[in-house]
């Protein structure tokens, strides 16, 4: 039994924006796998909810004319990991999606909810960050498109304006084309767990050199981060074991892990280096390269 005072269930995006505009204090609920747990724990008592579950247009995954892959914010993780377009063009996102929760959770949890919840452990966030994804936000007044890096404002906080909804995630062609990728979710369990560390790597290989490398990390800092120094180091370099090891070492630099009862700072930093190295090596392999020698 939940302490909910009102529930709105619009069927169109326009209607949702109108309701949210008129009632900016409403709590938006997507799949509910985070919101309802918070309510169960006693927060959000007496909340009014704006549910997006009936808005079919927000579930679509499609390829836009310019090669941008557009993923509706209400697409479930099950839908994402099974989707043909996602599997063909961004298999690393499929890999991240299926690492989340268990089958029942994935059936209801949405990618938009995962991002807007602001959790640093969100499995989709570090991957989308590595893919240079953009977020399309709309309210009654209009829309804006921002990069992932501008979305996170702090632990559990995202930059959403009044009455604003995350509508879709846009992955531009240059974000994914010709890229090999690997997402490693490091958690204590193989399912039904949150990441102790999430490492997402995508790279493009030409003549066994890094044409491009992008690394996103989850749970390595208060918000999901990118490892720009490691990425810059890699660019143009020949792929060798030493090079990959150096990339992994550099990946630790932007991190700001903290010690908690779940894991120590020292252990988390160690994991970033070990897992970044493994993820880069696998991404290279998937991009057609080779780092063994």
């Amino acid at each position: 039994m939940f302490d909910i005072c009102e529930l709105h269930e619009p069927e169109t995006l326009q209607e949702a924006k109108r309701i949210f505009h008129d009632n900016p204090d409403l709590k938006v609920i997507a799949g509910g796998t985070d919101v309802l747990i918070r309510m169960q724990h006693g927060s959000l008592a007496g909340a009014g909810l704006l549910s997006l579950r009936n808005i079919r247009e927000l579930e679509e995954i499609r390829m836009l004319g310019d090669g941008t892959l557009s993923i509706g914010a209400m697409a479930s993780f099950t839908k994402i990991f099974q989707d043909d377009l996602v599997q063909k063009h961004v298999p690393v996102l499929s890999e991240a999606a299926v690492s989340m929760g268990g089958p029942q959770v994935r059936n209801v949890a949405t990618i938009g909810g995962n991002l807007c919840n602001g959790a640093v452990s969100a499995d989709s966030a570090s991957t989308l960050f590595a893919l240079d994804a953009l977020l399309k936000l709309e309210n009654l007044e209009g829309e804006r498109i921002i990069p992932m890096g501008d979305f996170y404002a702090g632990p559990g906080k995202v930059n959403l304006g009044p009455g604003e909804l995350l509508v879709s995630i846009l992955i531009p062609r240059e974000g994914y084309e010709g890229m090999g990728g690997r997402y490693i979710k490091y958690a204590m369990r193989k399912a039904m767990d949150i990441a102790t560390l999430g490492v997402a790597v995508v790279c493009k290989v030409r003549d066994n050199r890094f044409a491009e490398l992008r690394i996103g990390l989850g749970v390595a800092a208060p918000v999901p981060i990118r490892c720009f120094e490691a990425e810059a180091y890699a660019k143009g370099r020949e792929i060798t074991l030493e090079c990959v090891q150096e990339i992994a070492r550099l990946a630790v630099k932007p991190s700001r892990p903290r010690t908690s009862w779940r894991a120590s700072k020292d252990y988390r930093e160690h994991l970033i280096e070990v897992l970044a190295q493994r993820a880069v090596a696998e991404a290279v392999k998937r991009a057609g390269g080779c780092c063994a020698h």
Partner: protein
Amino acid sequence: MDHKVVGKSAQRLDAVAKVTGRAKYTDDFFERGMLVGKVLRSPHAHALVTRIDASKAKALPGVVAVLTPQDLPQIKFATAGHPWSLDPGHRDVEDRLILTDKARFVGDAIAAVVAEDLLTADKALHLIEVEYEVLPHVLTAEDAMKEGAPVLHENRPGNIVSSFGVQFGDVEAEFQAADQVFEGDYETSIVQHCHIESMSAFAFVDTDGRIVVNSSTQIPHIVRRIVAQALGLPWGRVKVIKPFIGGGFGNKQDVVVEPLTAAMSLAAGGRPVRYCMNREEVFIDTRTRHGMKLHLKTAVSNEGVLKGIHVQVLSNTGAYASHGHSIAMSAGGKFRPLYDFRAIKYEPKTVYTNLPVAGAMRGYGTPQIFFALESHLDDIARKLEMDPIELRQKNLIKVGHMDPLTKNVVRSFGIPECIAKGMELIHWDEKKKAHQQQTGPRRRGLGMACFAYASGTHPVALELAGARIVMNQDGSVTLQVGATEIGQGSDTVFAQITAETLGIPVDMVHVVTTQDTDITPFDSGAYASRQTFVTGIAVRKAALEVRQKALEVATRRTGLPPAEMDIRDCMIVEASLGRAVCSLGDVAMDSYYDRILAAPITSDTSANVRINAMSYGVTFVEVEVDMETGKVEVTELWNVHDSGTIINPKLAEGQVHGGVSMSLGAALLEQMLFDPHTGKPLNNNFLDYKLPTILDTPKINAAFVETFDAAGTFGSKSLGECPTISPAPAVRNAVLDATGVAFHKIPLYPQVVFEKFREVGLLAERSVEHV
């Protein structure tokens, strides 16, 4: 022996009911006008309630009653699910009140609300005003025993529940005379049962004025007694019903929610009240497995002969005694009939701390002591440069061994065969060779561990079991037992024992699966792996009586004396000729409707079982250790058991699967964590408490060495708790084999493994400075 039903994998009687969702559990029953209860819990680990004002909560519309400690009888009671002892010196510690004005752990129940719905109850809890005088608290057994430590219970000023121990032989003399003496410290963490079904009950006052409690319990007859004791009522004024139950594992061998639920109903004028804990509450205010610290000191000859052992145990029992010292004592009893020590000194201390209450959990102290002992033996073998299996084989007891303290006799001892079979199944020697000189980031290792266990509690406690059989008109029988089906499959096993004895198929045995203390035969319930062994004897006895009565009725038809007849496939046959003479149905009809001699065939009997049988087994395991992350994965596992005759192989295999997964969780992932400064639970939910999922569980292989134990029905011994004892030390020993690193505490959590690898130089400090 040639059996028709015993030894076959009869389908469990409740299989269809459970998989189709038709089996009704406590929460599936509804009474008209049912209310709900909620509990206000202390936010402090140790505090006195100085003021409590419920007036605002009472004024909230929808609130029917608010209960505070003052509203309830001030009768301290013991909660442990043991048979009552007529000897006051053998009773459990009476240290609990239904609600307390002295909180002894974070989550201790201070007040309760009865309301029309959960939301109202929840709101009312926030309206109860409580002022606390916060007291200093203590979380570890060592700290609790220190001079000047905060005292939890006034009548135990040193916080020690008991330090009673046992010994035989002269262990000091063995240490003096020994070639070598080895010492080791081992520790297990606090874990929990994690049964799927929550702790739940509902209660109401019936039209005859008696209190009816419907509860998810393993021990309905004991619940009846303790509810009556806690409320100060005559025992007959309470009736307890136990429907289907979604797991207990010992947590429900304790009286947890029932007295409070009954009190809630009384406070609401006898209206039905349901109190069902949420998972967070189950973690903090039911029972846990005792975290234990064990110090082992062992005298050994240069040839590896174990001479004497001194075991010191610190058992952290939390804020209330519950099963208290019985668990440490059980551990001390179970490990003895395995290795042939000439002298044993067992010194346990059970200590109160300001943590959730520890109680019974599958294995009852035995997983802890075998983690220590079997780890210790591998450590000794390494130091002696001896094969760890050979060390064990060299020291095994033999059939006929009598424990000098309990006087229990070992009548069957399949461990040597279990070891041989396990080595073969896991390909021990081949794998040992293949694992030599590993250098990569992933290394494999092999480990094994043995265990011993008992069947029931004799001679420590009363082992009484009741069974009642009524033969129906069609020759089928209805069986009632006081022992409880809690998922382990006992109803099916009892049906098989009955069917085998009566010469009828299993589907002609109708087992009443619900226990109702008004009509169910007396039995103390499901615990101590006692059901097949202890209750099986009562069931067999009842079935034999029914068989004899049926043959006597048949005599009237056939003229043959009962001893010349047998019942086979529902027919009465002349035994020596195998000639069918009439059907069992004919006999049953005579028993009901013969105008002169009608007397239905029934038996209502009980067995006071004053014998025990030791069960044994071995775990063989292969692990793979990620040397860089510290993660340990089990790649192959075999549990090989000697549980005597296996009555139902499929059910036996199921027990092994469940028990092994529990032990692997404790070995690698599970631990209840508390803030060291406040005593608040950190992970009392299934996200943060890392119960393994099915993806984390390797294929679990079960194998059996079937001995015949003369003490048990059809040669059977216990199995229920056995599989959860040896996997954890086997995993620990396999990690030692893979890495050369000896861990002394479980779980082998990746963070801990990482730190240890750093400490011993297997992992270098990170080279790059973090800026």
